[in-house]
Every structure is written in C-alpha cells, then in structure tokens.
C-alpha cells in the first residue's frame, strides 16, 4: 500500500470512514514525514505536535461514538501563517509579529474546527504575503521540493511546498495577486483562489483587502473541492462576505457537460517560456480531444495587470500596515526616544525590505498630489479590466491560460530586481483585480523536471464549473500522481 503521505485527502477520508486507519495514525504519519523532510523543504514556521495529536485523538473518539461530523473529520489541515488559530502563533513570517499568539480563530478556522479537521502547523510565506518566491520571509527561505535550489513560488510558498512534499494532505493559503495559484504551479499541486467574497477574510492578516482571498492547496482537484466546501459560508464579521447558496463542489465534478473554453491570445506573447507554452498548448489540445470547444478570445488590458496591481495593492497595504505601531501588539523598539519615535523605530526594525518597499510605494501613490495620477487612475483601469473579462465570458464558460510565465526560478535570481519579480505574477493578478475565481492544475514538467501549471479562470461564483473543468483535464493525465524525490 502507498504511504499515508502519498494518499489524497479524499482517500484518507474514505479510509477513516471504513475504519482502515485512525486519525491519530494519519497525523503521526505526517508528523514523521515532516521530521524526515522539512529540514530540507522548510515549509513550516512552527507546529504544535501535542496539540495535533490531541485533536486527532478527539476525532477518533467522535468516530468511535458515531459522531463523526463529515468528510473532513480527522483530516489534518495546515495553515499559512496569516490565518488565525486561537492560542497558536500567528507571525505573517514577520519579525513584527514574531511572538504574537492569536487571541481568536479566523472564520475559516472556526468552520474547519466545527467539521473536525485537525488544524496544525503554521506555514511559511513571504512576509505579510508580499512576494512571489517566499524569499521575503523574515524567518527562512522555503525550498521547492522538486529542486531545493529553486524557489517554491510565493507568497503561499510554504503551503504549496508542504502539499507537494507530502507534509500535509492539504493546506490553506491566501491569494492577493496569485499567491495561491503561482506557488501551486511552481510546486506541482492544485491551488485555487475563490471568487472575492466567497470565503470570509475575518482572521486573515490583511495585505490588500479588496484583493485578498483564502483558498485551498491540494494534491487533486477533488481534494481542493473538498477543502473549499469546508471554508465557504457567509460571515457577518466580514462586510465583503457574500451570502450566496453553496453548491456541492465535489458532486459537481462529475459531469458529461461539454464546455466552450476561451484562450486569451494576450497570455501567449513575449516572456512566456517555450516549455511552458508547449505544455499549455498540449493541455488545450487535450480539452479539444475530449470534445470541448476551444475559442480564441481577447483580453486587451492584460498588460495593465502589473501597473494597476502595484498601485492598488501597496496603497491598501500601506493603509493596513499602519496598525503596526509598536503600541498595542507587535514589535516595539527599545531604542525609541519618545512616543512618536516608537512608531518610526518599531516599524523600521520590525518590517523586512519588501514590506518597507511596498509601504513606501503605497504611501507615495496615496499622497497628496499623486492620488489622482496613480491611485484613482488605477481604480479606473481596474474597471476596464473587469469589463474585459465580462466581454470574454460572453463567448466562453472559462478561460485557459498559463499560471506562471516560467517554471520555478533559482533562489536569489530576482531578489535585487523587484520589477522582474513583480512580473512573475502577470497571468494571475488580473483575476484578483476582477474578483474572479481561478485554479492552477499541474499540466506537465520542463525537461529539467520542474512542474508547469495550467490556470483555469472561471466566472464569478462559478467555482463548481471551474473545478469540474479542471477535474476533467486531471482525469486524462497522471501529473498529479507524481511526487518529488526527497
């Protein structure tokens, strides 16, 4: 039999319900896998071994008593270290929050606890979710399990690497400009960003509030559907949380429907690596051979993604991060001369280089005299981008694109060139600006053995259809079954 860490979450859930394995055995197997490989991968900032095993024990007891509460009961889920779990560390991989312990649960945490999931572990990220490589973590660089010299993508690099390395059956990340889909693509797992407003942001450390969305990482599309089901639901504590009927995502995967799939020509231009292009072309052909219709569409505003994003996201970030003043929580400088100096010095000592860079950029574009030239203009451009997607979706059910223009790059390769780093999210950013759902599924490997991801962009709140489209592709290929040698 395959090792527990090689199983999908759906298979583990099935084994649990048949009594073939206990939750404690599953949790112990993952903890042992972490002991064996996380020294190399460094996906975790921390994990609470005793608490994880206690939760697993409680799940086993529920099951023995006939009180198991659903498919997630007893299944381990690890969380990006920006999602609050009461009494556990919550650091955002920042020295600003190095010693912070969450006094409350995020909405998604409450929901998963209610469903019996075993929530364990805090996964590494780019500090405050700002970055595309997890090199900006204040603590450690997470490595790509397929090639330890390469980056896992970012900012949810720890969440992606943990799934790829078999350190957790599935994990949660957050996606502001591609921070779930891009690392999923680079690590060869499934990563999905829900429609803005579908998942509550209550208890998620804010980066850019109009773009942030929590979503699942998994080995397969079915697992992603399973975890998504567990975290959706209206929450009155998040004023952007939408109250909408929730379908059965897992059941919706099985369908004979034939789709019309749009391929936006602007996503296949300069900068797209030839091996990535070949893999995406093959994936498109694969859909064609399954009898789905492929149509060319145009998204002429694609190239606006990076400029618009790098005005709006830092603007919101500079505002959100103003709460880190060294007064009520977070790092406080011991060198400050007076009360005002506490702000200046605490922020200077607590934040890392990329966070400071974005705070400065955000403060600049919001400052008097530049607001209209940058911020307002970017908000107007955002309207055009959204209209662009609306027009494309009149011609098709979903869009097929590369997730990332290249496979994983080497650590250190882009650290001194922020613009080049920012361009690595060029295919994912517009989806956040338009508030749409997107999923990345493995669709091949480079000749050097690095994973390539296919991005499927769905219509707003049409996650069920988008996942079904991803699932249809996944059934035809065995990319998802491969694991890196560690």
């Amino acid at each position: 039999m395959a090792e527990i860490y090689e199983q999908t979450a759906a298979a583990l859930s099935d084994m649990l319900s048949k009594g073939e394995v206990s939750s404690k055995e599953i949790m112990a197997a993952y903890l042992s896998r972490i002991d064996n490989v996380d020294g190399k991968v460094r996906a975790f900032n921390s994990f609470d071994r005793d608490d994880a095993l206690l939760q697993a024990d409680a799940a086993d007891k529920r099951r023995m008593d006939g009180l198991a509460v659903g498919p997630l009961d007893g299944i381990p889920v690890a969380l990006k270290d920006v999602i609050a779990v009461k009494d556990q560390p919550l650091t955002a991989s920042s020295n600003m929050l190095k010693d912070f312990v969450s006094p409350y649960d995020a909405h998604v945490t409450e929901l998963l606890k209610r469903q019996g999931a075993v929530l364990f572990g805090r996964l590494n990220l780019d500090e405050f979710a700002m970055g595309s490589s997890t090199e900006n973590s204040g603590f450690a660089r997470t490595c790509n399990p397929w090639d330890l010299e390469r980056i896992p993508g970012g900012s949810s690099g720890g969440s992606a690497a943990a799934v790829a390395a078999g350190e957790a059956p599935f994990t949660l990340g957050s996606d502001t400009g591609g921070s779930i889909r891009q690392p999923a693509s680079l690590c060869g797992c499934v990563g999905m960003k829900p429609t803005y407003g579908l998942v509550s942001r209550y208890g998620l450390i804010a980066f850019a509030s109009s773009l942030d969305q929590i979503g699942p990482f998994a080995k397969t599309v079915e697992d992603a559907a399973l975890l998504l089901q567990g975290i959706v639901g209206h929450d009155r504590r998040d004023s952007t949380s939408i109250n909408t009927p929730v379908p059965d995502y897992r059941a919706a995967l099985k369908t004979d429907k034939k789709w019309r799939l749009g391929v936006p020509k602007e996503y296949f231009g300069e900068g797209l690596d030839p091996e990535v292009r070949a893999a995406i072309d093959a994936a498109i052909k694969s859909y064609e051979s399954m009898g789905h219709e492929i149509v060319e569409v145009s998204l002429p505003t694609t190239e606006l993604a990076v400029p618009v994003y790098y005005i709006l996201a830092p603007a919101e970030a500079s505002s959100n991060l103003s709460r880190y003043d060294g007064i009520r929580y977070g790092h406080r400088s011991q060198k400050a001369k007076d009360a005002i100096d506490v702000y200046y010095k605490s922020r200077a000592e607590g934040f890392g280089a990329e966070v400071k860079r974005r705070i400065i950029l955000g403060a600049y574009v919001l400052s008097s005299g530049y607001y209209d030239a940058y911020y307002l203009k970017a908000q107007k451009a955002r309207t055009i981008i959204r209209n662009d997607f609306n027009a494309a979706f009149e011609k098709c059910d979903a869009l097929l694109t590369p997730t990332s223009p290249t496979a994983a790059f080497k650590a250190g390769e882009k650290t001194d060139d922020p613009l080049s780093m920012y361009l690595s999210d060029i295919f994912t950013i517009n989806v956040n600006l338009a508030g749409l759902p997107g999923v990345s599924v493995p669709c091949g490997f480079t000749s050097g053995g690095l994973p390539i991801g296919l991005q499927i962009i769905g219509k707003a709140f049409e996650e069920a259809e988008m996942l079904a489209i991803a699932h249809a592709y996944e059934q035809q290929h065995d990319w998802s079954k491969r694991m890196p040698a560690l």
Partner: protein
Amino acid sequence: MAHTEIDIDKVAKLARLDLSDEEKQTYAAQLGQVLEHMEKLNALNLDDVEPTAHSFPLSNVLDEDEPQPGFTPEEALRNAPAARENQVVVPKVVE
C-alpha cells in the same frame, strides 16, 4: 505622472518609517523603476470610466447594536509589548 523621482524623505515620514541612507537610495531607485512601468496607464483614456474600489458593488453592512462577548483584559493585553494594571504601557507622551 512624469514624476519618477520620489521625495523619499517625505514619503518615509508619511509612512512613519525610519529608513537608513542606504535604504533610501535603494528604494528611491527601485521605485522610480517601478513607477516608470506604471506609465502604461497614461496611454489609456479614462475620462468617462468609473473607478472600481471592489470587484463587486458593496453597500454598507449594518448590524443591530447589541452587546457581544469580547476579549477579557488578559486576552486583549496578551500581545502587548508592555502592560500594567490592565493597561498598555507606552513611553511618556507629555512632560
């Protein structure tokens, strides 16, 4: 939008962020480059376009004004850098 020279001292002050001379130099140069990339937006005619703050139209979400359980003082002060007598301690503000 021709200003790709940032007055870094002014912005750092707005952001309440102490920067070293080296950081100031690096950020000013890098952000100048990033802002140049933003010039693409100037090619657009955006006169009649409504700005979008959120992907979906949002209106105020109102709640009944009812008391809800909150943090105990201990919970609220758990992460405070310094606390005494159920209060956050800060450096002296007034002489």
